[in-house]
């Protein structure tokens, strides 16, 4: 029999105070619960209880780049960040472009037990942008893939993009586009503007993102398909998406935590921790992205968690890898960017970081409101634990966080996945305990 947990005195996203009972793979009670004998009590006084967070954009690096991250370490990072499900991007080695690779990733995730690992399939074979990958086989596989992306590369060929958008309609899939016109960004190192000119770094112009989004929303409209736009980074992109939504085009969009908080000014010291693709933009862009998330033009926050080994960032700017780890810091960064600034409340956060990403990715058993009968996926967050973000907060294999040394307003205290804790009292639960709990929880569901 699995362990029962009574979470006492938590503040729900609605602002209501409640006890929450997790029992037998389900949320068994929400409210004032006196009778929970035998349950392990977790004191959540002053903590906010949110549905387990869902990240539509994670790089787990396994198979192929295990020196950066593995499914195990990446999902430990997820647990530390309050996530109970992650969508794993396809740019592994081998690329996740066949049923075999996506099934392997999903099963590694189930065995580790820290979070649901939902693989994303590549749109094109080897991410090369030349021919469609076996989208149908991945959709029908045990990994049940619904999101397809060549992330890291743009599906820049307009005909191939059209075909991909059309093809995945057969199984309610969605193409998640990394919007970057490749010719306009050859050798690009940072946002193109006044600062890139001063620093002598090749510019990544906003139009390279905006023009692809404009093309893709029109293609999606023409063929009546669903489009998702990855890591929107510019004010102009927001305008294009707003226009598309007003026209009724079926487009959703994500923004990363770092694009909601950090600006290109940080690059003036050539510190490669701030090198990311798409690049950090201007303060005006950050403002527009925050407003767009608040008004629903941008649907969700997704981390683009991109682990890299130390040597990939200890170098001159141009030689450094693009990317930042983001799972562990995401909720606190969103808190700083849109909650502290009064643009959004915790119910909005639950929507953009849990229910909507689960819906876009057609992932069941996640993103459900904390109610009796819902899946036992939740996270407890302390919104008053402002502190400097340090290495102790990173739980994955890589440490390329842009927030080290920066004060963030709160921290994740506990994460429950499948009814058992993956992160408790600020520490990742031991690997064998979590694996054991996962096996028994999966038995409840499937047995």
């Amino acid at each position, binding site marked *: 029999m699995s362990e029962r947990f009574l979470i006492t005195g938590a503040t729900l996203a609605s602002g209501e105070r409640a006890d929450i009972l997790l029992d037998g793979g389900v949320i068994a009670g929400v409210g004032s619960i006196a009778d929970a004998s035998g349950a392990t009590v977790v004191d959540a006084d002053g903590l906010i209880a949110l549905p387990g967070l869902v990240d539509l954009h994670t790089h787990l690096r396994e198979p192929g780049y295990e020196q950066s991250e593995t499914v195990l370490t990446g999902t430990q990072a997820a647990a530390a960040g309050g996530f109970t499900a992650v969508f794993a991007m396809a740019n592994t080695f081998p690329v996740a472009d066949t049923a075999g690779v996506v099934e392997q990733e999903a099963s590694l995730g189930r065995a580790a037990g820290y979070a649901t690992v939902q693989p994303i399939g590549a749109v094109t074979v080897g991410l090369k942008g030349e021919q469609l990958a076996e989208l149908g086989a991945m959709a029908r596989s045990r990994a049940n893939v619904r999101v397809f992306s060549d992330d890291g590369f743009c599906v820049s060929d307009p005909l191939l993009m059209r075909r991909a958008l059309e093809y995945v309609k057969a199984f309610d899939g969605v193409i998640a586009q990394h919007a970057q016109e490749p010719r306009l960004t050859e050798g690009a190192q940072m946002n193109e503007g006044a600062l890139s000119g001063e620093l002598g770094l090749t510019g990544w112009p906003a139009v390279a993102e905006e023009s692809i989004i404009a093309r893709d929303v029109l293609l999606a409209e023409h063929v009546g398909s669903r489009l998702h736009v990855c890591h929107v980074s510019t004010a102009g992109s927001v305008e294009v998406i707003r226009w598309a939504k007003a026209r009724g085009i079926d487009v959703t969009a994500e923004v990363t935590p770092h694009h909601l908080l950090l600006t290109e000014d940080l690059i003036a010291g050539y510190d490669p921790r701030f090198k990311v693709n798409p690049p950090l933009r201007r303060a005006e862009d950050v403002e527009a992205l925050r407003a767009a998330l608040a008004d629903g033009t941008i649907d969700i926050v997704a981390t683009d968690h991109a682990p890299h080994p130390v040597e990939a960032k200890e170098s001159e*700017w141009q030689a450094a890898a693009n990317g930042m780890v983001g799972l562990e810091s995401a909720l606190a960064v969103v808190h700083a960017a849109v909650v502290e600034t009064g643009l959004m409340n915790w119910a909005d956060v639950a929507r953009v970081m849990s229910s909507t990403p689960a819906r876009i990715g057609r992932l069941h058993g996640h993103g459900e409101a904390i109610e009796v009968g819902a899946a036992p996926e939740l996270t407890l967050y302390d919104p008053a634990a402002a502190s400097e973000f340090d290495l102790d907060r990173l739980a994955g294999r890589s440490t390329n966080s842009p927030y080290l040394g920066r004060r963030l307003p709160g921290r994740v205290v506990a994460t429950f996945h499948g009814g058992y804790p993956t992160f408790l009292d600020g520490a990742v639960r031991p690997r064998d305990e979590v694996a054991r709990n996962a096996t028994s929880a999966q038995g409840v569901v499937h047995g």
Partner: protein
Amino acid sequence: MRHLLSTRELSREQAVELLDIAEDMAAVQEREVKKLPTLRGKTVVNLFFEDSTRTRISFEAAAKRLSADVINFSAKGSSVSKGESLKDTAQTLQAMGADGVVIRHHASGAPYTLATSGWIDAGVVNAGDGTHEHPTQALLDAFTMRRRLHGAASRGRALDGVHVVIVGDVLHSRVARSNVWLLATLGAEVELVAPPTLVPVDTSSWPARVGYDLDAALAGTPDVVMMLRIQAERMHAAFFPNSREYARTWGLDDARFDALPPSTMVMHPGPMNRGLEIAARAADSQQSTVREQVANGVSVRMAALYLLMSGDRGDA
């Protein structure tokens, strides 16, 4: 001065002091014995990740005339071409006891990374980084202008009111960037002329005017016209149609040169593409400072090494 990474960080006082020390160094060059004992026992490493024989030998001459030991480290055929990182190279130099590192690198900001990473204690001189800066080139250009304008009375002076037109590939030019900041700091009036494709998209924060019409700029009878080297590969990346059109529109050809007042200096950081950005008549004229620039380069680099490596280096 701790490092010399860009001209942007130089104050007017620092810049004038460096130019004045360069005057002292130039005076030494006129003696029979050209060598000073100032940096005896110190080691300067010329760390060149990009080929540049001219700049390297200029720094080498400067260091040797200050009695420093010089080690030349070129990326080609070295551990760097075998994949060694900048960090490992820097730590190797640190272990060898380098007191000063002169770095030329194809990546913008590499000297900054070297100086601020903690990998190395040595003073760092930027000898050209990517498309960012080339501070000693701008200092030698300013030195050359000051000498032509004021001769023996140069010491202590800046370049107030001097009208400088810089022509060519501003977008990719570290020489242009370093000159813009330094000349403006010294009080000069800077005007940039280039095809619109070869200017950064936003120069609103630069202390310089930007125009596309060379004839209009030259009609303003500038004190200095500085022609930048245009690289052939820019043509292939569609920055301009072909070399003939470039030379016709933005080259200092005979007609444009002849129309200039005889007092206008013609500068070029070298190496020149004769017939493309500059015609032979202009390059070889009395108004051309090209050879003085080379000679002054040694004096200015001696001054920079002296400031970085002798006595108190300070924290700044």
